[in-house]
């Protein structure tokens, strides 16, 4: 099972007017791995990410999760299929508390007659049990990411680093097969990045596959089992981190553009 | 066939007024993503002032030709409307630029109510007659009649619309307006003061509204403190129909809506076998709006709105 492919993207294409953002990209994410997606600015990483997670409809391409085709045109269907993502510019529910944000993540996994409107109004035993379960699970996830004490704080009052971790907790609440992270380390200092790295390794160890876009090449190399490099919308290299680091096309793409990250 | 022609004429005239008003809405929405609910009231104030001037002049200078009356009426109402609109923007909208999106909507509605009530108190709670300024003998076109005032309204409206579109496309001010509409931060970096441009946008729309107010007063011979509301709503519909933020769209939307309304009112009896009568006319505007938004939300010519964070 661990060698099986979780996510398979084949021949994904997307153009915006005259600009080809994603040009015949194919990508496979192994179950249980942390796969990185890197490339210089404007390489098409975010667009590809948005195609995979349903935010933008692809012009062409097929998308499979566990060898089963999924429809990449509906955000909420993608979530239900088992891909849950975070956002580059952090999209938390600002006026809701940290705990409530994570509880929302449990929404689609707690469907039953009890949790509907009538259950809420009548406060049936089934409803109360379901609510208790949601709350407990959410608190557990907050503990897992290290935000236990911030449960009752409004999410917009949290520090930047905490907000990022909260977003991850919320995504984990949906019991995803694939956790898709969009630049989770952006704006973090070295200590925070280490904490993030440990968290992601723990998530992988606990059985969730991760796909991650990042600009911090060092972080990616130290974290990922496989890396795909994009430039100008095309895949220029795919494979193990140590191979990618030495790959001539990759070096040219980064250094040739005068683009280095420490 | 005669009915068709008549309704088309009526529709075009009405539509040209809607277009004038719609342009004001669309420019403000394009720049601020705000529905300027007070726009209809600015129109009403324009009409009221025109009436005041016309009444005063007709009694003191009876020999003044219609052109003179109209010019002086506009010379009074346009600046007042522009000032009013700039004041509204400064006092009610600008402080709330960073507030939750519903806040300026509520202030707009509150101001709309306040303006209407003030007009009711200071002018009159009752409808007032607006005298005919132009000769009333209709021109015959085929089997239909075109009143001189209708021709006047249509020509003036069309001229103003063309002038505004030309100005926005070709002049430096127009460029600044388009820049701020697309990307206010970038425009600021280019040395354009967005606040000034926003104020000018409001004032341009208000000037058109003042003319539209006079046009409506002339067309229906009535001025009333609620006269701005429904046309305002319909004009917003027209702006959305054409593509919000899109100036030519407002023109197309306005003319189209005027014709749909006119034709609909004329034919609805036949279409529904007598079930619905022409008093359902207002329903048309709304029905069109709903259909457009559901089927093609970006409007006929596509919307042009900046992305607001």
């Amino acid at each position, binding site marked *: 099972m661990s060698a099986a492919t979780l996510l398979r993207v084949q021949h994904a294409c997307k153009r915006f007017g005259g600009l080809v953002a994603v040009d015949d990209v194919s990508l496979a994410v192994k179950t249980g791995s942390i796969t990185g997606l890197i490339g210089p600015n404007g390489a098409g990483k975010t667009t590809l990410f948005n195609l995979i997670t349903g935010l933008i409809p692809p012009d062409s391409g097929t998308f499979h999760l566990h060898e089963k085709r999924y429809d990449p045109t509906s955000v909420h269907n993608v979530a239900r299929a088992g891909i849950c993502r975070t956002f580059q510019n952090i999209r938390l529910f600002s006026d809701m508390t940290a*705990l409530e944000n994570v509880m929302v993540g449990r929404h689609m996994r707690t469907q039953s007659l009890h949790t509907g409107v009538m259950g809420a109004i009548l406060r049936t035993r089934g409803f109360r049990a379901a609510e208790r379960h949601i709350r407990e699970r959410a608190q557990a996830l907050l503990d897992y990411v290290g935000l236990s004490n911030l449960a009752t704080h409004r999410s917009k009052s949290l520090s930047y680093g905490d907000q990022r971790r909260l977003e991850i907790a919320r995504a984990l609440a949906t019991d995803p097969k694939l956790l898709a992270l969009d630049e989770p380390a952006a704006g973090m200092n070295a200590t925070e990045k280490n904490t993030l790295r440990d968290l992601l390794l723990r998530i992988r160890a606990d059985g969730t596959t991760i796909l991650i876009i990042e600009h911090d090449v060092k972080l990616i190399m130290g974290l990922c089992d496989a890396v795909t490099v994009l430039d100008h919308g095309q895949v220029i290299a795919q494979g193990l981190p140590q191979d990618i680091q030495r790959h001539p096309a990759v070096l040219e793409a980064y250094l040739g553009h005068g683009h280095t990250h420490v | 066939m005669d009915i068709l022609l008549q309704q088309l004429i009526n529709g075009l005239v009405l539509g040209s007024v809607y277009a004038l008003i719609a342009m004001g809405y669309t420019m403000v929405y394009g720049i601020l993503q705000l*529905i300027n609910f007070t726009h209809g009231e600015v129109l009403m104030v324009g009409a009221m002032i025109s009436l005041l001037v016309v009444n005063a002049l007709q009694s003191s200078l009876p020999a003044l030709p219609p052109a003179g009356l109209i010019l002086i009426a506009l010379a009074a109402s346009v600046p007042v409307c522009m000032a009013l609109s700039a004041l509204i923007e400064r006092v009610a909208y600008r402080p709330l630029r960073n507030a939750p999106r519903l806040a300026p909507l509520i202030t707009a509605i509150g101001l709309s109510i306040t303006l209407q009530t003030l007009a009711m108190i200071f002018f009159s709670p009752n409808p007032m007659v607006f005298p005919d300024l132009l000769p009333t003998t209709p021109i015959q076109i085929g089997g239909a009649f075109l009143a001189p005032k209708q021709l006047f309204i249509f020509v003036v409206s069309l001229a103003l619309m063309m002038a505004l579109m030309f100005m926005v496309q070709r002049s430096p001010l127009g460029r600044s307006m388009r820049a701020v509409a697309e990307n206010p931060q970038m425009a600021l970096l280019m040395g354009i003061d967005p606040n000034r441009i926003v104020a000018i946008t409001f004032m341009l729309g208000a000037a058109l509204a003042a003319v539209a107010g006079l046009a409506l007063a002339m067309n229906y011979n009535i001025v009333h403190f609620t006269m701005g509301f429904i046309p305002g709503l319909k004009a917003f519909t027209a702006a959305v129909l054409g593509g919000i933020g899109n100036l030519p769209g407002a023109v197309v939307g306005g003319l189209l809506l005027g014709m749909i309304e006119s034709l609909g009112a004329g034919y609805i009896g036949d279409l529904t076998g007598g079930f619905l009568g022409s008093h359902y006319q207002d329903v048309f505007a709304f*029905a069109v709006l709903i259909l457009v938004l559901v089927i093609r939300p970006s409007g006929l010519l596509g919307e042009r709105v900046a992305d607001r964070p």
Partner: protein
Amino acid sequence: MTALASQPRHKALWAVLLIGCVLLVLPFAAGLLGNAWVRILAFALLYVMLALGLNIVVGYAGLLDLGYVAFYAVGAYVYALLSSPHLLEQFPLLAATFPQGFHLPIWILIPLCAACAALFGVLLGFPVLRLRGDYLAIVTLGFGEIIRIFMNNLNAPINLTNGPQGITGIAPLEVMGHPLSQPLDMGIFKLSTLELHYFLFLALTLLVLLISLRLQDSRIGRAWMAIREDETAAKAMGIPTRNVKLIAFAMGASFGGVAGAMFSAFQGFVSPESFGLMESIVLVAMVVLGGMGNVWGVVLGAVLLYAIPEALRHLARPIQLQLLGEEWIAPEALRMLLFGLSMVLIMLLRPRGILSPRTPSP
């Protein structure tokens, strides 16, 4: 929970008891000043109910509905049609089937009105689901107007709503066999019809309040708020936004329907005039001014924006006569003026509403 519950328990209990006593005694105190004041209280409660209903749509789910009055109208007309001789007069077939009139008991009639309003809520909801904020506002406004125009014109060729004249002869509410048009003699004291209506409305309002609070603190409540905060993120978490929005419309509309039924029965008469755009606008103002999504804020907003202008309307004339010797501004005009100005001022001073948007539950 609320600020109330964060204080020591017994303090909160005392506060609730105090408010309870005030609410119970209020109609009698107001009655001393005159019947008009008790009517104001009863109507204030109706507005609170409506505002709470709208709060679900606007406050919880963030859907700007400017045509909410349509649901009020549906509830009112359904009640009117089923409790007055109008339909029986128009359709001999119905008169033959129900020679004594429909005579539906209150526990069927009120849910029926709520259900009809909810149905309209869903019908309105469907086409507007994909619309963003301002467009949604205009379309819902259009719907509200369309409903009113239909109510005003559906008197030919079939006379359903009796057009601008409205429907008269609406039977009063009957609670446990006692029609509310008759005073209730309880031995120790007598309750007038106005007071009876007040207490019924109070009970219903408290019920609506309870339901609102329970919905807020539930899975569906969180889903609504997620949509309000960031719809894309909500979708990305798997929330079926279309259905959740429809539920918001339906629930909100059902409260409006109940209030409409009460209105109908209270007045004994309904006409399209009572369901204009202004009503929708006033309701939105109540919700936003009070503090969107905050149930207590909404109650405050409803009371402030209804009771105070109404009080003013009654007092404007005597006050002006006292101070100025004559009436400078007509009471209705003064009310509208102050209403408009207060909307502007409150929004400028406190854009998020008087009470902050709901304090989250721990």
